[in-house]
């Protein structure tokens, strides 16, 4: 049997995304967020995660999706990164899915724009496609955005 991978999934604007399970530190419902003036748009703010300060990244903005409608609180998918924990703000949390390499496919060449940078590929699940998120990239490019926004 082919090797399986577990993914933590979540939704963004009805799209299904997945992050390798071992990269996820935890999933948290709601954390009060402190906004950072002058910060790039994709950085939604800072959160206090049990005494640890975590930077929140609004994945919708990162992927150039429309902003969440007001009143819907985002969920936090806290990712371990080399630079400490980063929280990805998503719409809704899905299941943990187990997939094999066979269902994986590179993103189609026609996929352009920001999404392409951040997506490693897709897994063809039974009902829909799961976009595999490149977490490093999702946080990393934000840095470039930062320096761009610098005055």
């Amino acid at each position: 049997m082919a090797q399986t991978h577990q993914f933590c999934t979540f939704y963004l604007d009805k799209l299904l995304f997945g992050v390798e399970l071992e990269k996820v530190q935890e999933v948290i419902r709601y954390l009060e967020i402190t906004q950072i003036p002058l910060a790039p748009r994709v950085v939604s703010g800072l959160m206090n995660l049990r005494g640890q300060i975590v930077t929140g990244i609004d994945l919708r903005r990162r992927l150039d999706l429309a902003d969440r409608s007001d009143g819907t609180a985002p969920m936090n998918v806290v990712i371990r990164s080399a630079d400490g924990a980063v929280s990805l703000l998503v719409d809704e949390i899905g299941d943990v899915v187990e997939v094999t390499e066979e269902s994986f496919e590179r993103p189609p060449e026609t996929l352009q724009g920001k999404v392409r940078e951040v997506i490693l590929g897709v897994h063809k699940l039974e009902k829909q496609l799961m976009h595999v998120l490149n977490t490093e990239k999702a946080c990393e490019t934000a840095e470039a955005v930062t320096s761009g926004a610098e005055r």
Partner: protein
Amino acid sequence: MDDLIKEFLVESNENLDRLDSELVKLETDPSSQELLSSIFRTIHTIKGSCGFLGFSKLEKVAHVGESLLSRLRDGKLSLTPEFTSGLLAMVDAIRTMLGEIQTTEQDGNETYPSLIESLNLLQQQSQDAPPKSTPAPAPKEPGKKKQSANSKEGAAKSAPPASKTPPVKAATPIAPPAAPDPPKTQGVPEANLRPVAGKIGGALVDRGSVRPEDLAVALKGQLSGDTRRLGEILASMGLITAEDAQAAQQAQEGSRSKNAAAETIRVDVHLLDRLMNLVGELVLTRNQISQYSARLSDANLVGPTQQLNLLTSELQEEVMRTRMQPISNVFDKFPRVVRDVATAQGKQVLIEMEGKETELDRSLLEAIKDPLTHIVRNSVDHGIEMPDQRVARGKRPEGHLKLRACHEGGQVLVEISDDGAGIDTTRVKNKAIERGVITAQQAGRMSEGEILNLVFLPGFSTAEKVTNLSGRGVGMDVVKTNIDRVNGSVDLQSYLGKGTTIRIKIPLTLAIVRAVIVQSNGNRFAIPQVNIQELVRLDADRVRTEIESVRGVPVYRMRGRLLPLVYLSGELKLAKQAGGQADQDDATNIVVLQANEHPFGLVVNEINDSEEIVVKPLSKQLRGLKVFAGATIMGDGKVALILDVVGLAQNASIFSEASDKALAEENAEALVAQDHQSEKQTFLLFAGPDDSRMALPLSTVARLEEFPAKEVEKSGDEWVVQYRGKILPLLRLDVVLEERRERVRHDRKTVEPDPLQVLVCNDEGRTLGIVVDRILDIVEDRAEVKSPATREGILCAVVINDRVTELIDVPVLQKIAEANRTLSTEHAEVIN
């Protein structure tokens, strides 16, 4: 990596650092046998460990050094600067090799043949030359053996003769150690033969029960296979009693346990960092609980909360102390640095250090290491002159460099001063103009201090020629940036021809700081208290009058100086708070901050408490934001950002580049004009004779009075009036001032005002009244001198309210009046 190797590396690196300073010290005190022995032992240890661990190349290098040192120690050679340089080069080589071992676990491919060659050469050269210290004559009396043996070894204090050879042989000069392989390095480690304090032999010698010579015999016996304890051997030799041996044994045990207690342990730095983080979090939790308990006012909670408060603070302090290291860790490297630079340039420099035990956080120590080294280098390189120049200037040929560290008001102060040439402000000024840092016009306005501080600007170096050590143009600006980064400050003072002093102030620790919490548009921010000069609150109506603008830039006049204002909400583009009251009509809170010597006022909506906050760094996504220094978690569990005052000032263009500076200067120019208003004085304006405008500083006027003309008693030209039970002489301006005009006196009596307007003045304890025509006004104005006085009794002519006004000089007027009086009395006498 092998634990053994790791330990070897740590130990050797420490030893090498010590070697550096000891070698330099030895140069100033070449006869110190103690230093020599210590240096020798260190090299010997390194060499021994190398052999053991199989680093043969390293061993070879250490070996030549050791044999050279052994000859030095034995007085066969005397120390010359070349020796020191050679040995220091060896230390460097060993250090490089250790670095190699650190990364590859091998001692590298470099064998340093030239270094070994030169060290050998040094040794041979000296071998040809006769040894400096003359061998002592063979001792005749056994009792004097000790001294003679000692003198042969160059008055060794630390090495009693017994350590070398048995007493019988002491007289024979020790054969020069056959350079490559002195037997002592292998068979019997020489240190073992030495009665060391803490060892029983040493204890016995100290007690005076055994002579060192006898001890040596016993030691020899032990080494040649006697398995008994030293005490027992000595007892069997009949030299000591069993009790003596026992007592010494006990003393030995005692000193051993004391040693153990005094011992320190090595702790991984990461562990300490982790500990510090945990304590930081504990502080946060404590803050949260304190807040909660204050709200609840539950007596059962208050007690433990206070206790928690105390304990946390204490714990925090102690943990912080574990991270504290003495500044000597950095200072001790400087003698070597100074020596290197001085030798390279043929200068003579004495280095003096004070307060080496001053402790500060190790991360800060790291942060100031490079800047300090740079400053020290600079001082020797550019500051201290060549010996002949110094002599020509009447100074001692050797320069003096002084390093001083101390704690001062919760900060660490490090001072580096030299008695060198000092900084030539004219040269700095010219250079700055040449480089376009400032314009000539600006330069003219700058104070000495401001000009000196130009050296901190990027790309500024006054060194006329670039040396290989410093003066590459990356200089003081890097120092300043590094110090700024840790919230420190640098201050430079220099007197041409006398020397330069650089003062660095740094906080004790970075992790936990005291900060003032401010609010703007509903956002909370922390401002480190060290940056804050003062807090100002202006009422709504004062806001309207006291906040002015210079070319659209809002400024506040604070004690006569204009303070540029920065609105935090505007600077950070904070969204207006929904439902928030319009703050325009409210009181304004100004936090007066200082960034790189530029004060500015930060306008915020609210100033809250000051609190201890734990500084957490921002994640990499946010590092581009220069306006924030970090973030912290507040007592209520929310995150607040910490403002970076320097970054904020840069963002607001309080200062940044030359162009900004020029702009600021222009503004300053406008400010200067206004600035003078600060020297405004209040004047009493009045009309003098012939309707001339005159004035007196209001401060000199005690009262304004009116006297009906009939109350004035006239005796000749002298007018007096009864005033508050005293006689008040009146000084008539028309008389005293117009005396010179030689007018006919009778004319002026025609118009006599009634009542008389009198200014009551106090002049040197005497009260007098000045009669004036009319009191015009009291005005506030700067007394800009327009022209000097044209007649006696007038101080000068100034422009007040756009009209030329004469300032009268009361003391002079009084003198004139007195002169007139005598004149009129004489006149009266003549008539009589």
